[in-house]
């Protein structure tokens, strides 16, 4: 057989294994003693060995099992080495991190959920949780993460190493929190996953941007799979709806606002996926309760009002419904935005509510709401969406000069070329 083809095939198999099971294998290898760095090194070596052995010996029937065994043997060698034994005083080192002898990862189970809780542990600095999750759960390269966060690569690498050292030294446990801890422990996990989507993309190349937003969805769907809690399902639905519209968001480098987007450019399959997730999210808590065999668990719990992600997903769902119905249910959006503000009172949320109020009660009502926001919060004077909304409403009322001034102010507060181009166009078009 052609050796080159073999090598190509082996590389393809190794790449596929890497993408599909990197986090799974890493979680298994790191769970025992929490030493993620050592587990990463062992796994990297196993992948390297695969690239030299598979072309010669053929791709094994169970590539994951092969990789796990090699990595595990490597860890065993490390712990037996004199260098390791002399580097820790006797009796103080962690237990050898060699997982049980089982060679089939499928039968050992999935420890990625534990890994995600470790990455978003309260003892880990909030700013590094998303990068840590991208690197360990999905195997995203540190250099790509650095590019997405607009941080120099050595700086990002150093921060990741520090966080992993902390996990090991502080012995942050690889476990799923017990039911009573979940309300406190789940939100940071959700924030970290959402963080992969909501990165401030300054300077990031479009291809990095595209692949990382895809990674955010992968993380959210994985989390929804492992822990089908209502808010988790809500987050996964939200990302489905948002990403479904990604292609329609810009035309020739100019931003297209949501209600003017061509629904033909929306990804209907992804919207349907979001709808299915949202239905499950709104059906009430099920996931952990089932897992913990709580006999008293019933469907919808009135004491569990929808949280931020379910509400944001519901808002996006209303917008996406325009693809089916041809219209937008603005009164429903007012209700949902009000509910969202109660659980997540943010400046962005208040401005968004003012914008939908204007749709229902008219531009004057929207402007009055914006004035209230501006009076209550001095920082809102630098808040770009507020100026864009004000400009839009002033233009609707025919206040041309004021509208143009507001468009220009709004444009001065953003560096995003597509947003700047859109606001410049609007300013010019305002008669």
């Amino acid at each position, binding site marked *: 057989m052609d050796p080159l083809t073999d090598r190509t095939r082996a590389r393809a198999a190794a790449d596929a294994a890497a993408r599909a099971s990197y986090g799974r294998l890493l979680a298994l290898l790191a769970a025992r003693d929490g030493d993620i760095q050592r587990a990463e090194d062992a796994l990297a070596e196993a992948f390297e060995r695969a690239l030299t052995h598979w072309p010669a010996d053929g791709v094994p029937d169970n590539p994951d099992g092969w990789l796990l065994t090699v990595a595990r043997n490597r860890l065993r060698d490390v712990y037996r080495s004199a260098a390791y034994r002399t580097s820790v005083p006797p009796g103080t080192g962690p237990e050898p991190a060699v997982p049980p002898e089982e060679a089939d990862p499928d039968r050992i189970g999935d420890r990625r959920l534990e890994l995600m809780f470790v990455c978003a542990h309260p003892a880990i600095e909030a700013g590094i949780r998303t990068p840590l999750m991208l690197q360990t759960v999905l195997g995203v390269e540190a250099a790509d993460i650095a590019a997405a966060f607009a941080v*120099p*690569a*050595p700086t990002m690498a150093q921060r990741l190493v520090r966080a992993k050292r902390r996990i090991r030294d502080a012995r942050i446990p690889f476990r799923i929190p017990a039911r009573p801890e979940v309300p406190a422990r789940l939100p940071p996990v959700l924030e970290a996953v959402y963080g992969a989507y909501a990165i401030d993309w300054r*300077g990031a190349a479009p291809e990095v941007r595209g692949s990382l937003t895809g990674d955010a969805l992968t993380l959210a769907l994985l989390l929804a799979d492992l822990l089908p809690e209502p808010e988790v399902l809500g987050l996964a639905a939200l990302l489905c709806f948002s990403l479904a519209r990604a292609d329609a968001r810009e035309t020739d480098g100019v931003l297209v606002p949501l209600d003017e987007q061509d629904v033909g450019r929306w990804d209907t399959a992804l919207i349907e996926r979001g709808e299915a997730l949202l239905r499950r999210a709104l059906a009430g808590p099920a996931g952990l309760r089932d897992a913990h065999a709580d006999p008293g668990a019933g469907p919808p719990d009135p004491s569990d009002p929808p949280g931020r992600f379910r509400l944001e997903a519901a808002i996006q769902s209303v917008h996406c419904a325009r693809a089916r119905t041809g219209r937008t249910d603005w009164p429903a959006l007012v209700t949902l935005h009000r509910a969202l503000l109660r659980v997540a009172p943010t400046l962005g949320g208040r401005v968004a509510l003012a914008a939908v109020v204007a749709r229902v009660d008219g531009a004057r009502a929207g402007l009055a709401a914006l004035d209230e926001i501006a009076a209550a919060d001095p920082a809102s*004077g*630098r808040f770009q969406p507020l100026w864009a909304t004000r400009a839009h409403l002033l233009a609707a009322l025919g206040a041309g000069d004021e509208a143009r001034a507001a468009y220009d*102010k709004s444009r*001065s*507060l953003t560096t995003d*070329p597509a947003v700047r181009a859109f606001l410049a166009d609007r300013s010019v078009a305002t008669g």
Partner: protein
Amino acid sequence: MRYTILLHYPEMTPEELGPGGWEEGEREFQAYATALDQAGVLLSAEVLQPSSSTTTVAVRDGELRVQDGPFADTKEQLGGTFVVDVPDLDAALVWAQKAPSVQWGTVEVRPSATHFENGAWTR
């Protein structure tokens, strides 16, 4: 309204920056200057040589003093300037926080008092 964005940061050699660090910095500054330029707000951009190559000149008691090196020996040195024309301070701050060196140094935003144009200082 003109503002000068002054970049202060600790000076580092390519060796100290590590492999790829220097090139990455160059890429980031390229992207930053391009963004300013395309937004139509950039008037000038300078990245300076390290302060070890600076020369300070002063006349004291009628005597010219030429000194090899900067005024003060501080951790951070002036490393570059971007002059921008934007409507107000808020807009200047939006651009200042995108400067690559905001990650490893201090970015100062100073409004222009006046500038020389067509043979005269503007008022």
